[in-house]
Each structure stands twice: as structure tokens, then as C-alpha cells.
């Protein structure tokens, strides 16, 4: 990897941190503490289920909001404020800038997720008193959540290269919502006929399949996750992310920075 990508990534990480984005961890801590205490008082026998469900959903939503709202400004803000001019007039390729920005935000999200994961496990320990072997599947669910973050960061970045922050937010959030129902979309496409079947299938496979990466409910019920499923989901998410990033690079390489 180019050393310049690392410099751009670390600067992006610093930007996001200094933007006080990690303050969301305070809100998350308060949510998990409150939920743990409340669940302990009102739930009988399902405290663990509720805490895992709530905790992982919160990790996912907090991260998605950060990925979308920071991601959409990663490039457009630099163009608007013209901070990009002094970067691209140096020996920095446009692709390096895009990839560096991606890794910077992705790195922030990973760090954020690690802190939140600690919070989820702490809440689990509080309500259960001990860890079970099946709790290890929570780590897989967290890993899948990180994969979703990579995909949505790349998508937000893609929209950031050619549209305004507002439009990019609308597009990225729409794709997040549609992608959460991707499996249903594929089901609908399979029921269609003729040209509409081709179009619906194409559209269903074009949107990111977040529903396949959402295993929160199953791990909350302590169900194991197959190794092949982990491998195929990893491959899918990484290829999808790489393709979206390539699209972002292609658009940005041709863009006039007026």
C-alpha cells in the first residue's frame, strides 16, 4: 500500500476524532447502562437476549449514522473548502486520496465498534453474571456489522465524489434501507416474469445485501454461525466494497475541481 494512503487515512482518522464523533460512545454507554439496569428489573429469563439484541442493534445504528454522515462529506467537503487543492498539487494520486479517505473513516468505525463491543460484553456480564461459549458468536455478528460499515462507507464516499452532501446522504441512506431488505427483494425478483424479472433481479443484486450480514437475532438466540457463511459473506462484502470504491475512484479521476 502506498505510504501516502496511510498518511491520508491517519489524517482522516484525526479529523473524525477531533470532530468529536467518538462522543457517540458516551451516548452508547448511557444507553447500555440504562438498558442493563432496566432489563435486569423487568425481564425474567430473557435479559441476555434483550441486551444482545439491543446492544448489537445500537452498535449497528450508531456506526451506520457515523459512516453515512461523515462519509458523505469526505470528498465534497474537501472540494467545497478547497483543502483538496493543496493535497492534489502534491505527488498524490486521486485514487490514493479516495482510498486513504476510505481507510481513515473505516479505521475510525472499527475503533468505535471495538469500544462499543466492550460495552455490549460488559452489559452482558452485568445481566448474566457470566459468559457462555455461545457468546463468542456475538463477535461474528460484530464482524459482520463492521463489514456493513465498510460497504456503507464506500457507498457514501461514492456519492460524495459527485453530489452534494444532502443528496449523497439521501442516496446512501436509501441504499442502506433498501439493502436491509435485499433478501426480500431477491425473493420478489424470483417471482416476477420476463423483462421485469431480469430488471428486478439486476436491481436486487446491485443493492448491498445488508440483510444477509444481519445475524443479530440468531446470535442473540445463541445459534452458531457456519464457517462457510462467514467466508462467503466476507468475500461478498469485500468484493462489493472494492467495486464501489473503484466506481468512486473512476468518477473522481474524471472530475473537474472547479
Amino acid at each position, binding site marked *: 500500500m502506498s505510504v*501516502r494512503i496511510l498518511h491520508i487515512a491517519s489524517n482522516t482518522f484525526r479529523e473524525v476524532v477531533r470532530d468529536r464523533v467518538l462522543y457517540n460512545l458516551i451516548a452508547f454507554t448511557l444507553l447500555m447502562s440504562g438498558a442493563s439496569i432496566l432489563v435486569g428489573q423487568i425481564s425474567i429469563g430473557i435479559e441476555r437476549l434483550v441486551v444482545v439484541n439491543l446492544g448489537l442493534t445500537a452498535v449497528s445504528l450508531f456506526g451506520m449514522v457515523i459512516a453515512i454522515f461523515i462519509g458523505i462529506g469526505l470528498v465534497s467537503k474537501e472540494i467545497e473548502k478547497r483543502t483538496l*487543492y*493543496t*493535497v492534489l*498539487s*502534491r*505527488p498524490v494520486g486521486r485514487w490514493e486520496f479516495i482510498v486513504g479517505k476510505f481507510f481513515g473513516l473505516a479505521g475510525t468505525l472499527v475503533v468505535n465498534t471495538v469500544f462499543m463491543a466492550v460495552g455490549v460484553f460488559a452489559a452482558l456480564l452485568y445481566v448474566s453474571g457470566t459468559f457462555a461459549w455461545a457468546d463468542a458468536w456475538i463477535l461474528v455478528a460484530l464482524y459482520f456489522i463492521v463489514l456493513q460499515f465498510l460497504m456503507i462507507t464506500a457507498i457514501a464516499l461514492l456519492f460524495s465524489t459527485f453530489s452534494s452532501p444532502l443528496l449523497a446522504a439521501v442516496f446512501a441512506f436509501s441504499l442502506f434501507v433498501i439493502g436491509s431488505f435485499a433478501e426480500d427483494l431477491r425473493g420478489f425478483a424470483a417471482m416476477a416474469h420476463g423483462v421485469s424479472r431480469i430488471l428486478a433481479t439486476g436491481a436486487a443484486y446491485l443493492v448491498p445485501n445488508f440483510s444477509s450480514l444481519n445475524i443479530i437475532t440468531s446470535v442473540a438466540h445463541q445459534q452458531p454461525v457456519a464457517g462457510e457463511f462467514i467466508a462467503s459473506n466476507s468475500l461478498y462484502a469485500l468484493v462489493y466494497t472494492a467495486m464501489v470504491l473503484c466506481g468512486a475512484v473512476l468518477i473522481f479521476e*474524471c472530475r473537474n*475541481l472547479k
Partner: protein
Amino acid sequence: MSMYAIEILGLEKTYAVGFWRKRPKSALRPLDLSVEAGEVFGFLGPNGAGKTTTLKLLMGLVFPSGGSARILGMGINDPRMKAQIGFLPEQPYFYDYLTANELLEYYAQLSGVAAKERRRKVVEVLTRVGLEDVRGTQLRKFSKGMLQRVGIAQAILHDPKVLFFDEPMSGLDPIGRREVRDLMEELKQQGKTVFFSTHILSDAESLCDRVAIIHLGELRGVGAVADLTSSVEGKVEIIWHGGAVPASLQALTSKCHLRGDTVRAVVREANQDAAIDGLRQAGIRIISVTPVRSSLEEYFVRKLKPSETAAGVRS
């Protein structure tokens, strides 16, 4: 390798404007220009003339519709070339969450400055632009003038061979402007090539070896300041002894100033011989005949018709 530091060959830029029916708008008509190594070159024009477009084309920020350019003999997207140039954009804005020190460290990393030299170079340039005392302050607390200094610091940080400054004096107080002028003189002494755009003509006049004048995206003139100004003005100042102005001379000039028994008159160069003959015939002793050098501003105003200037400012 080319002897020119900057070679611009028919570089042009046309944008498509309009929402539904796109129509072409020329921001820069085919521009041919060359700047020799070690020159301080002024790129002059009113607002909206195409100066910033040209600089953005040279920096690879916008893509040309036609033509090409070479800097230090290399293409404008060659990373080896980019490691040897410095660029100060117009009204620069930087990552305001960084301190001046952090920003310059970041730019030094991107420019490929060796890790062991980075810290020293950053301190050196911050001292050079007078910001050593605020190096640990976040840029969001900087004034416009201080940001301009940071902009200059980042442009010279990696010791580039060619510098591009877009309106370098903009936002600076008189002391700051003097300092930038001194810095540019210093860069010239060091053999650097400086290409800077400005609409402040006195800056160009005092600093530049050569200037180019651009207006409405079109090159209107290029040359040494002295050559440009002498080519259009063509006036001579004649001073003679004695309080009288001969009738033959009164027809040639309306500007006669009498001080004591000395008269000073300015006549067009074409009328110089007739004026001198008239004075000699009247038996008047001529003290001096001096060509009048106009300022660059006069040249500029003459070169750009008032209506065009107004149009340029509007666009």
C-alpha cells in the same frame, strides 16, 4: 530536457454551462506561454480573466479541453514533477482542526520529505513566515492573513523548484505584503521559478521579470514590464530653460508646467522632433529630453478597454 521551467502549448478550457441545454463557455482560449527557469513571472488580469483556471489546469485540478503543458519538462500529472512544485491557492483554507505544525507535517509527508528532516523543515518554514510562536495553535483560530502565511509556508516547505502562487498578497496587511515580496525576491535569488497571478499591478511591476496579461480567457500581451510599458506609451518629457512656451509647441501639447524659469512639457513621441525644432527656432535652451515610462497600470488600462474590464469583473 526543456530549457523552460513552464511550457504551455495551446492550453484551453471550455465548460458546459446550463442545466437542460448545455452550452459551451470558454474559460481559457488556447494559451501559449513559456517561463524560463529562475524567472519571476506575473500572470495579470482582472477578476474572472482566467488566471485561476490556468493555475488549476497546471495543477491538474481541472482537465484541459485542448492543448498541453509541461512543467520542468514533465507532463502536468507526472508525480515526479509534482514533488518539485509548490502551490498556493487563492484564499487558501486548510484543515482547521489541525495545528500549523500538524498541517505542515502532513503536507511534508505527502510531498515525500524524509522523516528525519520533516520536523526541522516545518520549524524552518514556520519561522520564515513568522508563525513560529503559534505553531501549536489550531488553524481555526487563525486570521485570514495568518492563513495566507500558512499557505505560503506549505508551498515552500519541500524546497520546490517551481512555485505557483494564486493571488499571494490577498488578505495581507501592508507589512505582510512587504514580507511576501521579500520572500519572492529571496526565492528568485535562490534560483526558483515563481509564477504568480495577481490583479495588483504594483506587485507585478516591482517583482516580475516578465508578465503576461490575460483577459476574458485570452492572452493580451506578454513580455518584460519595461518593454510592455514602453511599447504603448510613446511619450517624451522635454524640459527647457526660460519662461516662454513657443506657439509651435502649444499646438503639440496641452501639458506644460512652469516652475520658476523652467518649463516641463510632455509630448507624444511622434511629435518629439517637431517640438525640439520649434524650441530651437525660438532660441530656447533645452535642458533634457527624457522618454516617459508609463506604469504597468496605464498599460493595463489601455490594453483592456473599459467596457471589457467591466465585463471581466462581472464574470
